[in-house]
């Protein structure tokens, strides 16, 4: 077994542990921190698969921005920090475990039997080629996605700010 495979398997194992901790811990902040670990390990996996640009985008966008948003959301909605027994809906635990276990077994069966291949590791950076493809062959979806992002930005601001008409009514 090469050192490369050992590192990859170790990354996958840690990924599973941290992902399980995201959904099972009873502490909101611990869940967010575990998601940081999950995403960092995913970026490590992407680096091991020689897709450097996507790994960097993942670190920048997810760990840099999305997790900060989540922590803001946790603090604004006054979710109780620290251990909280109310966080899970205990009635749903059995049915949730059954459904997710069934989905896992089905997907594993399909993926193990349906796909067989070797990971192709390319040396060097593919970022330059990726940029060229993104701005030539995929330029239309790229523009659409940037428009979606703009719409989400405006929608988020509109939703989250205080409605001034309502504020005026409250004062009257």
């Amino acid at each position, binding site marked *: 077994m090469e050192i490369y495979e050992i590192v990859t398997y170790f990354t996958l194992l840690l990924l599973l542990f941290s992902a399980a901790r995201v959904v099972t811990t009873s502490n909101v902040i611990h869940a967010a921190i575990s998601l940081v670990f999950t*995403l960092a390990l995913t970026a490590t996996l992407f680096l091991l698969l020689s897709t450097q640009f996507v790994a960097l985008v993942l670190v920048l966008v*997810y760990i840099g921005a999305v997790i900060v*948003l989540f922590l803001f959301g946790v603090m604004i909605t006054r979710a109780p920090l620290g251990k909280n027994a109310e966080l899970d809906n205990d009635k749903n635990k059995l049915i949730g475990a059954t*459904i*997710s276990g069934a989905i896992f077994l089905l997907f594993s069966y399909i993926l*193990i039997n349906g796909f067989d291949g070797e*990971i192709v590791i390319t040396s060097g950076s593919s970022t330059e080629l990726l940029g060229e493809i993104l701005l030539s062959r995929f330029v239309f979806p790229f523009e659409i996605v940037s428009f979606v992002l703009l719409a989400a930005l405006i929608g988020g601001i509109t939703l989250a700010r205080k409605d001034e008409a309502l504020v005026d009514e409250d004062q009257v």
Partner: protein
Amino acid sequence: MIVQPVLVTAAALFSLGIYGILVRRNAVMVLLSIELILNAVNINFIIFDSMLADSLMQGQIFTIFIITIAAAEVGIGLAIVLMLFRNRQTANINEFDLMKW
């Protein structure tokens, strides 16, 4: 290196996300679980890109698109949760039954 262990790990991440959506009571935690699911999809895209050695790198490009859409989704989702919290003073999704019959 063979692809199956990575694919099964991605499937496990996906089902952990489903479990989180079904079990969690806090809306922010449900959004965290959705991020896990999107992350599993990203891993699948990258692993197939790596397996097929596609000259157009469509796996990587779609992963970048998914990351963008996920960022938009989190922004909108948290804005909605914030609105709900402002109106109902709670973020527990089992207390939002306005649209139930």
